[in-house]
C-alpha cells in the first residue's frame, strides 16, 4: 500500500468474472479487486488527505462534492453489478489498507454470501407516483352554492367545499398509492418505502404519493412493468435497473 492512501470499499461480489473496472472511482482512481476465497471486494486507492474523517465530513456537507461522490460510487457499483452478483457497500466506507479489507471478507464471508444469494439475478426498480395538485377553485365555480346576495358567505362556503374536496382527493390518492404498492409487492421479491420527496426536490408540480423501491427477479420484470403501467389515476415514474442498494442486507423486507 502506498503511504498516504486509503482503501475505499465500493462493493463485495463473487470472485469469478472480469477483474478491473473501466469507470473511474470517487478519487478519479481506477478501481480494482481484492480477492479472498470466493469473494472479491471492489476497492479503490484514494488520497488519505481527501478521504480522512475530517475531509469526508466536510465533503458530505457540500452538495456538489456529495453529488460527485455519490455518482462515482454508483457508477463503479453498477458496473460490477452488470456482470456479477454484487452487494453494494454504504457510501464512504474506508479502510486503512487492503489487508483490512481481506480480514473483512474473511470475517463476514457467511453474511456476504447470504446477501449475494438473496440478490443474485435480481435488480432494484424505483417507483414514484404523483397526483395532480387539488382542483383550483375557479374550475368548479358553477357548482358552488349561489348566495350572490351574501358574497362573504358564498366565499366561505366555496373555501370549505374546496378544502373538503382537497381532503377527499388526497385520501383517494393515498388509497391508490397503497393499492399500487401492494400490487407491485406481489411482483417483487421485496419492497421498501422511502419518505415522500418534497415537490421542490422532485422537480414536478404534482404531489408525490408513493416513493418506493422493489427487488425484482430479472425474469419477472415484464410482469412488474405491466403492473406499474396499470396504475390508475396517478402519473408513475419508474427508475432502474439499479444495483440492489436498498436490499443489500439480511433484514427481511
Amino acid at each position, binding site marked *: 500500500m502506498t503511504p498516504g492512501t486509503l482503501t475505499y470499499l465500493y462493493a463485495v461480489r463473487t470472485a469469478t468474472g472480469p477483474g478491473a473496472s473501466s469507470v473511474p472511482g470517487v478519487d478519479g482512481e481506477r478501481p480494482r479487486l481484492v480477492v479472498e476465497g470466493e469473494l472479491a471486494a471492489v476497492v479503490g486507492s484514494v488520497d488519505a488527505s481527501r478521504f*480522512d474523517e475530517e475531509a469526508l465530513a466536510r465533503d*458530505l456537507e457540500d452538495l456538489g462534492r456529495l453529488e460527485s461522490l455519490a455518482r462515482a460510487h454508483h457508477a463503479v457499483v453498477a458496473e460490477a453489478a452488470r456482470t456479477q452478483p454484487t452487494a453494494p457497500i454504504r457510501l464512504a466506507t474506508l479502510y486503512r489498507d487492503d489487508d483490512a479489507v481481506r480480514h473483512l471478507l474473511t470475517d463476514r464471508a457467511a453474511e456476504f454470501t447470504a446477501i449475494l444469494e438473496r440478490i443474485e439475478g435480481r435488480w432494484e426498480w424505483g417507483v414514484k407516483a404523483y397526483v395532480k395538485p387539488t382542483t383550483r377553485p375557479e374550475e368548479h365555480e358553477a357548482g358552488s352554492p349561489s348566495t350572490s346576495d351574501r358574497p362573504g358567505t358564498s366565499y366561505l362556503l366555496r373555501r370549505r367545499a374546496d378544502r373538503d374536496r382537497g381532503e377527499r382527493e388526497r385520501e383517494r390518492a393515498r388509497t391508490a398509492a397503497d393499492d399500487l404498492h401492494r400490487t407491485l409487492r406481489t411482483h417483487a421479491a421485496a419492497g421498501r418505502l422511502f419518505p415522500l420527496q418534497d415537490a421542490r426536490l422532485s422537480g414536478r408540480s404534482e404531489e408525490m404519493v408513493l416513493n418506493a423501491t422493489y427487488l425484482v427477479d430479472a425474469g419477472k420484470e415484464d410482469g412488474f412493468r405491466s403492473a406499474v403501467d396499470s396504475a390508475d389515476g396517478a402519473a408513475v415514474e*419508474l427508475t432502474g435497473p439499479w444495483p440492489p442498494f436498498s436490499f443489500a442486507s439480511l433484514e427481511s423486507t
Partner: protein
Amino acid sequence: MTLVRPDDELSLVDLLDRLLAGGVMITGDITISLADVDLVHVSLRALISSVQTLLEPGSADA
C-alpha cells in the same frame, strides 16, 4: 409511465435515497462520525437548503 434509467440523467435525490440509506453498512477503519442518521440529516439539509436557494428568485408557485 415514464422510464428513467440510472445511466441517464439520474435525479440526485433518487440516488441519495439509495446511497445514503442503502448498501451494506460496515464500520470501516475510518470511522466517519456521521452515523446513518446524521449522514442523512446532514445531506438532506444540504440538499434542501441548496434547492431552496435555487428556487428563491421567482419561485412564485413553490
